[in-house]
């Protein structure tokens, strides 16, 4: 379980987050939604200890992310940020291998190699494994980054807008793979998504944020409603049914 209590964050004079209290249960896919500047990425980044909050606590499993040993935490929790511009020219396999660093400290043992093979296989990257990242398309590169955090074999996987820059087909494939990571590999996946319909279609739990606060938390069916979405996004949103899933319509 991820427990966030009384968390706040300011960027200079700008109030970015909080105070926020949230519990994300173990297992399944949790989606963070909300308008730009709602604090979704800020909260995710603090949970992933890439940023420190001004006050409050974050616990992942039974570890406090601020005080826990970084290496131990790296075996429990993996985070991928939205922007990844790597100057280093690595092959897909080398990049994914770096995800094993918390376990291997650079010396790859057979179980590390196996974990890398598994992650590559899981994201259909096996045929691309010896290609350099700069030889890949944006979608393939995004998959390679996700494979790196999956190879880390952590209980918790946090992803900040993993669908960014992906076209329809690749976005759908990515969400399916994350869903499978939760269902088949038992990972707890937390994603920030821009498109509420991906949250509606794939998430077990949806967290809606506005102005640095949590507006609504609940199963997709409870949060993806005209009332909640209209209030959260500040624009008229209608919700229709499609194959037993709610779909938000907001183009008019």
């Amino acid at each position, binding site marked *: 379980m991820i427990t966030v209590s009384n968390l706040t964050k300011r960027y200079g004079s700008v109030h970015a987050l909080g105070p926020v209290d949230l519990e994300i249960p173990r297992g399944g896919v949790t989606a963070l939604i909300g308008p730009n500047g709602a604090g979704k990425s800020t909260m995710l980044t603090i949970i992933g200890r*890439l940023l420190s909050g001004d006050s409050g606590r974050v616990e992942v499993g039974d570890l406090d992310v601020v005080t826990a040993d970084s290496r131990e935490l790296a075996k429990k929790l993996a985070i991928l940020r939205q922007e990844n511009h790597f100057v280093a020219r690595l092959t897909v396999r080398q990049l994914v291998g770096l995800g094993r*660093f918390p376990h291997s400290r650079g010396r790859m043992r057979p179980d590390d190699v196996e974990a890398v093979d598994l992650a590559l296989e899981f994201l259909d990257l096996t045929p691309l494994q010896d290609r350099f990242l700069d030889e890949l398309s944006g979608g393939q590169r995004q998959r390679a980054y996700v494979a790196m955090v999956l190879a880390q074999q952590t209980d918790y996987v946090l992803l900040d807008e993993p669908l960014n820059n992906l076209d329809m087909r690749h976005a759908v494939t990515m969400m399916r793979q994350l869903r499978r990571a939760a269902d088949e590999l038992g990972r707890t996946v937390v994603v920030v998504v821009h498109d509420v319909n991906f949250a509606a279609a794939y998430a077990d739990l949806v967290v809606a944020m506005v102005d640095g606060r949590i507006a609504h938390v609940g199963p997709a069916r409870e949060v993806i409603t005209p009332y909640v979405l209209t209030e959260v996004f500040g624009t008229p949103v209608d919700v229709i049914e499609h194959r037993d899933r709610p779909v938000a319509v907001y183009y008019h």
Partner: protein
Amino acid sequence: MVTTSPAAATSSTSWWRRSGGLSTLAVITASLVVLSLFVGVYDLGAEGGGEMFQITRVPRTIALVLAGSAMAVSGQVLQQLTQNRFVEPTTTGTSEWAALGLLISVILLPSAGLTERMIIASVSAFVGTMVFMAILRRVQLRTTLIVPIVGIMLGAVVSALTTLIAISTNYLQMLGTWFMGSFTSVVRGQYEVLWVVAAVCVAIFLLADRLTVAGLGKDVSTNVGLNYERVLLVGTLMVSVATGVTTVVVGFLPFIGLIVPNVVSLLRGDDLRSNLPWVCLGGVAIVTASDLIGRTIRMPFEVPASVILGVLGAAGFIALVLRLRRHG
């Protein structure tokens, strides 16, 4: 699902990843090193030839090997740490700070030996490189070319200060010869401290995986439980020692740290551990070749290796800028 044919997965550079490339490079480098032992004005067959061989040729060749690998590896490490392809000790101000340290040590401790000088130069190089890193952190616009420009500007300012101090203490003439980047004066008893850089190279090899991770930035490093700040500090320290020692013994060797790691990266990517032998051999080959050209082009006079390197390196640098611009 994206399907990719197996043929497309084979990169055009795969030939270089096979070990054949490394042995070829090793043979070329070894030949240059052996050649360096036997090229020179003094006739080794003449009386005292054997002793001359011991006094100058062997030390000079060892110095070429050590300085060449030190500067090439330093460039590679700095490029990882700053995540920028255009940095190396002479474009980050590291060499200039080492020079300032050396001058100060000569003025303040005139009786100090090579070891003390080397320590002071390395400390100065470390301080300077940390200043560079600190400025980089405050620069908002970290485009590819801003980073080396900041370094070159910083180096120029430090260089100006060094010159000013040299003028007011009558050391200006010596300054030119010290930092010329020439292996002419490397003789027995004057180069042995360079072995320190061999130790630095080994240490970098041991830290290679950490440096590769650090090359992906602070967030990725933190995510995999690596203490980024510490790696940055240790990496900078290694580079400073290698640069400080090389500057004290031979002076500035421009562009090796730039050209060699970039060519190796183009051919093989950036996995530091498997690249290090390539980077070392490449550095040795280029420095040795430059010194051999310098020794023979105007025989019996010598042109400093750094002049040859400057010519080769400037052309290489421009080619690199153009290439990277084309590839975005």
